[in-house]
């Protein structure tokens, strides 16, 4: 990881010194363990603030929305996929952006570490080789990093960016694909019978049981909109959840209104969500929103052969049509 940090700092320094960009967007150590903070570097001599490790879970593309300055961004796989999405939706000017591809080995899920340690008060954590060492509640805890990776990372198809201007090279790159074949012991999600868990032989839930699980998640939501605001693809100036006339989505935080909010977001992100997991990480009360989005991602993939952020030349499914598009919802011709 040190080699990566060195390369990130060197690249940032060079880009700023050469005047190729005015701003470099990356990560620096955050105020709490297990979560680094976005870092805005404007001067070459500040490049030393940048760091990189397994706690860089935020999707930096969220800061690029509508950005008109010349910016370089230290993008891991999912970040670059989100950037591709924003480019297709004309939210960024391509030639003002320098995408520095950072090979990713997967990010740690803070909630998983908290569950394993048994407290939400983790004071410090660091990675040693393939182990994570966390200190909290007066105890020290060790586990293989694999066990505390984000669910999204375990299923990531492209942790190393395939869209970039520069690609940092540290020799061997992690292959996360083997993890998607393994059952995730600490992953509590089984909301969808179509998620990969079901393919691994985990029991599926009946629809009423699934709805109850979903409502239990929705009941936790406090409508802080952290999930929405952290998502690079949620950039509407007026979100329909905020509109009062008509009031599409009830403002009061109760299971019914919250369910509408979560469903609305899932539908609006269909074919656009790149499954970075930043929303799950951002939620202060641990609502698992990801399964909804996965379900829709699968629908889009199967019906339209489209995966968000994969192919720069493929038109988004909602912006195009083909005569071969499925019509099974038309029952009477």
């Amino acid at each position, binding site marked *: 990881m040190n080699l990566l940090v060195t390369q990130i700092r060197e690249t940032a320094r060079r880009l700023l010194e050469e005047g190729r960009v005015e701003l470099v967007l990356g990560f620096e150590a955050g105020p709490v363990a297990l979560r680094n903070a976005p870092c805005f570097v404007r001067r070459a001599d500040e490049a030393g603030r940048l760091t990189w490790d397994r706690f860089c879970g935020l999707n930096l593309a969220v800061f690029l929305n509508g950005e008109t300055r010349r910016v370089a961004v230290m993008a891991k796989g999912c970040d670059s996929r989100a950037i591709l999405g924003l480019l297709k939706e004309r939210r960024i000017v391509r030639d003002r952006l320098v995408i520095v591809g950072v090979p990713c080995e997967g990010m740690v899920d803070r909630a998983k570490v908290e569950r394993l340690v048994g407290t939400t008060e983790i004071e410090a954590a660091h990675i040693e080789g393939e182990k994570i060492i966390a200190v909290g509640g007066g105890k020290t805890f060790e586990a293989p990093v694999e066990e505390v990776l984000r669910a999204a990372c375990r299923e990531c198809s492209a942790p190393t960016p395939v869209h970039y201007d520069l690609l940092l090279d540290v020799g061997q790159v992690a292959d996360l694909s083997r993890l998607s074949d393994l059952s995730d012991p600490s992953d509590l999600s089984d909301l969808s019978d179509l998620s990969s868990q079901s393919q691994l032989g985990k029991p599926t839930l009946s629809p009423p049981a699934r709805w109850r699980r979903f409502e239990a998640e929705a009941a936790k939501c406090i409508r*802080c*909109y952290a999930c929405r605001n952290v998502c690079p693809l949620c950039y509407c100036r007026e979100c329909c959840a905020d509109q009062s006339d008509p009031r599409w989505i009830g*403002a*009061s935080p109760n299971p019914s209104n919250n369910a509408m909010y979560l469903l609305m977001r899932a539908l609006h992100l269909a074919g656009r969500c790149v499954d970075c997991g930043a929303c799950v990480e951002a939620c202060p009360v641990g609502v698992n929103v990801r399964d909804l989005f996965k379900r829709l991602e699968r629908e889009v993939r199967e019906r339209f052969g489209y995966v968000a952020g994969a192919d720069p030349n493929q038109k988004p499914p909602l912006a195009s049509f083909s005569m071969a598009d499925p019509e099974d919802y038309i029952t009477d011709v």
Partner: protein
Amino acid sequence: MRRGIFPKDRLGELIRRWAADRQIVAPVRQGAVEFETVESVAGICLDYRNTRLPAKRLFFPPSEALLRFDFKAAPERQVAEAPSDTHPTVLFGVRPCEARSLTLLDCVFLGNDYRDPYYARRREATALVVLACSTTAPTCFCTSVGGSPTDRAGADLLLTDVGDVFLVEVVSDRGEALLAGFSLPGADIETIERAERAGAQLAASMPLVVGLDRIGSLDVHVFDDPCWQTIAERCLACAACSFLCPTCHCFDIQDEVIAQQGRRVRNYDACMFAQFTLHASGHNPRTYKSQRVRQRLLHKFAYFPDNFGAVACVGCGRCIRACPAGNDIRQWLSALAAACRDQSGAGCQPA
């Protein structure tokens, strides 16, 4: 303000006595630790630093009906105050910072020209049994904002853990009433001194927010400082901080109707949201994120002190833990304290 010793193994009896005619709300561990209604001491977790969600939710809930509408009734009787669901309650095992936050919310909801009856009813019905802190988290900074791990502000009873027993301090008449029927043998000087020493050591061990120890509030002239742009850069303008904050109190009021019934509710709102101050005309005094970040910080550290003589922050650190973008209010305050000093030269108002 008498003090005495209460053995921990008798806590169950005390809870049982209270539960006879009161609701008991205490910290319960279900993954994170949160306040729940409990039936007995068995479910209570006291081995924790702080609950994930703040105690303010028990007095100022995230969603609360103010009025109820019945459109089938005669016109003059269609609108009425929503029925109250308040019960006598003991909030047990709450931290000093949380109890203190309620005294600050009292300034807004009770100390005004207008008394908020919904908040007032819950406050009057609830006794606070505060558990002093024996450890702190790296995100705690109560001592920087006028509090401490052993602060008794807002408590009816203050409990300090000293091994097999609690050192109990009766802070109010209501606290005294809670102990009716239980003896509270006086504490010996040694126990008291040991507890006080530990508390003082704990308080002293907490790093102070740089610059904040020397100012009691921010100079409002920092409003025009250019530092706000940079401070707000990482902020995503969500409300994770505001909704988890023990002292944030902004709310929205909405009418909800289904068929012939309805209600007027108040829901949490946040000055961080873009549409918070949006006029019907389209004019918005706080269009930019930096203006909203400025509002939040100055409200807590300049305007509230101006109106009520205390900062509207208890240093619980929930905002720091919750922020998805790694913002740290302590760093903001240090930057602002420095800007304050630069501007006024003579320094800011003393604590």
